[in-house]
């Protein structure tokens, strides 16, 4: 059963649509991340769910019932904000107990709940502190405890960790993941950090300019981004313009097998993940048309692997693109890459985007048996 349903949710600020016809549903116990670039309407969507922003159109349903008429204090949601929002004049315990007190719980029960929720976020013994005596990470954990203690039907989180440093952000993300696993709470988590979304979410809702671009599992979002925006936004992707020619895809001087039923007369884009670009040794038997020749422009050491940026002028018709667009390639750490060195690449898997439509995936049969990059001596 779905806990949350958004139906054609729209928000306009003085006529300008900021959230545009967003529909999605979140199942019971599911953790959904709303991911998108800054200003795409993520927070506005979340604030409409929490009741802090009025919807211009559409509906928000929780457990099947519309909550549009309810003010935030009467919605079964609890929010963790991006800013630090602990009340400075209350101790940690008082901050957490505030909402319980409003529900008229007996004192002993409140104390027990406060203790439990502090233990849940790993801050037992902090109850007598004031927010000013906590670090940013601790404050956000208390804010999480303050929301969880109310046992909301739906937990809303608006970039709760984005004010923290990178290391702490990862740690809190993992802790949140563990807590979510344990108590199985339904949650909507807003972030612009795709790593955060990919590692936390059961499903990711990618938003762009107020619209929902794709709602899918992290795997699917990465493997089959449904729009060019998602393809470009999630992870690293090489996007190459192509045309259809004699049933094959033409990219500059190169050709690739085309999907069977492609609508004609459409601008096509071929999308290749860096890890799907195999670096191979040139071989006389291989068709020179299938291997892409590139020239290394920059090699970046990323610890356990190397990211290589290379020009491949042969792939482009447009002279300007040929001189500016760089292919992104991953190579093993020991791969000997120097600026200006030539490189041969073989696309093993790619997606073809016809216009604005859903992509078609193509896996190339392996051309030759063993031409792994490690075998190359340059």
């Amino acid at each position: 059963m779905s806990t949350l349903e958004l139906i054609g949710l729209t928000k306009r600020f003085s006529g300008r649509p900021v959230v545009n016809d967003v529909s999605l549903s979140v199942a019971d116990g599911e953790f959904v991340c709303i991911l998108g670039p800054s200003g795409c309407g993520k927070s506005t969507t979340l604030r409409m769910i929490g009741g802090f922003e009025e919807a211009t159109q559409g509906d928000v349903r929780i457990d099947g019932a519309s909550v549009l008429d309810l003010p935030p204090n009467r919605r079964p949601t609890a929010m963790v904000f991006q800013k630090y929002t602990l009340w400075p004049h209350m101790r940690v315990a008082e901050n957490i107990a505030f909402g319980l007190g409003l529900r008229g719980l007996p004192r002993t029960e409140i104390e027990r709940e406060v203790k439990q929720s502090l233990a849940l976020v790993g801050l037992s013994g902090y109850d007598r502190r004031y927010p000013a005596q906590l670090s940013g990470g601790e404050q956000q954990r208390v804010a999480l405890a303050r929301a969880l203690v109310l046992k909301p039907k739906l937990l809303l989180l608006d970039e709760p960790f984005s004010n923290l440093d990178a290391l702490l952000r990862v740690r809190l993300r993992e802790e949140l993941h563990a807590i979510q696993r344990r108590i199985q709470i339904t949650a909507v988590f807003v972030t612009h950090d795709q790593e955060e979304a990919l590692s936390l979410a059961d499903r990711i809702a990618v938003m762009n300019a107020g619209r929902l671009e794709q709602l899918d599992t992290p795997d699917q979002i990465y493997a089959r981004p449904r729009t060019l925006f998602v393809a470009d936004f999630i992870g690293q992707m090489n996007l190459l313009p192509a045309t259809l020619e004699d049933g094959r895809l033409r990219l500059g001087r190169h050709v690739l097998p085309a999907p069977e039923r492609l609508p004609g007369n459409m601008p096509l884009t071929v999308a290749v993940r860096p890890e799907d670009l195999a670096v191979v040794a040139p071989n006389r038997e291989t068709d020179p048309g299938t291997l892409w020749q590139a020239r290394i422009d920059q090699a970046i050491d990323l610890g356990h692997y190397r990211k290589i940026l290379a020009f491949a002028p042969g792939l482009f018709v447009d002279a300007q693109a040929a001189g500016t667009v760089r292919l992104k390639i991953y190579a093993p750490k020991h791969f000997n890459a120097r600026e200006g060195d030539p490189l041969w690449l073989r696309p093993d898997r790619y997606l073809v985007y016809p216009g604005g439509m859903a992509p078609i995936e193509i896996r190339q049969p392996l051309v030759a048996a063993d031409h792994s990059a490690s075998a190359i001596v340059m």
Partner: protein
Amino acid sequence: MTADVLVSSLADGRAPRRAPALARTLVRQAPGVFFLVFLAIIVIGPMLSVVLWAFAETWWYPALVPNTWGLKYWGETLARADIRSALPLSIGLAAAVTALSAAICLPAAYAFARLRFPFRQPLLLSFLATNAFPRFGLYVSIAVVFFKLDLVGTLQGVALIQLVNTLLLMIWIPTSAFQGVDRALEEAALDVGASRLRVFIQITLPMVLPALSAALLLTFVSTFYEAQGALIIGIPRVVTMPVLMYSIINSQVIVQYGAVISLILWLPSFVLLGLVQRFVRGGTMAAGFGV
């Protein structure tokens, strides 16, 4: 030697390498010490002289302290019928004006801080107008109007004119205090189930309390000392302490009267300052703000 080291190091832009610690401390703290001494001379000097005069029965020129001490003038001053009626009148009037001002201004300040409405900015600036121009002319023209309304010489008239004086302070300080409370803090309280009224009372109000009490204190004290408006509108029937002091000082050249009345006038300030200090410093409030 220290000076030489300092000068040479300043000249070549390096910190003095082995300047004695004491000298360095002195140099660093010199501005603070100088400021403190200056403040003491400006503030404490005159105050001390007033205190001395209040307890002096005779004090002739070359003596550094009074020749004879005593409470004679206290007895005389406090026995005066005009002071016995003026003191409670002044305290009551100041309290009433402060309360009235708070009742009008605090909701207005909250509105200025939280709502967007047309002419908000000009309206906010307009309160400056009452304080930006010489008061005397304003009072005289108000007096003309009040005369027609039969308000001259009445308590209500004085209260009204003093109220105008308090508006600027009572709107501006609380407005900026309310603006200083992050809306997200209020939203978070709303989110856990508090009604708007409860959010205001339990979240917003405690956070602005230090600023509000400062505004209330300043309003009370400045109203208590207010003399121009009370003089022009109140005379002859409503005589407040400051007005009385003017007339006493003008009619009798006995310094001690002035000194004793001054001390009496300071009293409410000190009492309120003490209260606010304890209130703002002590306990939860201070810890909450990390003071």
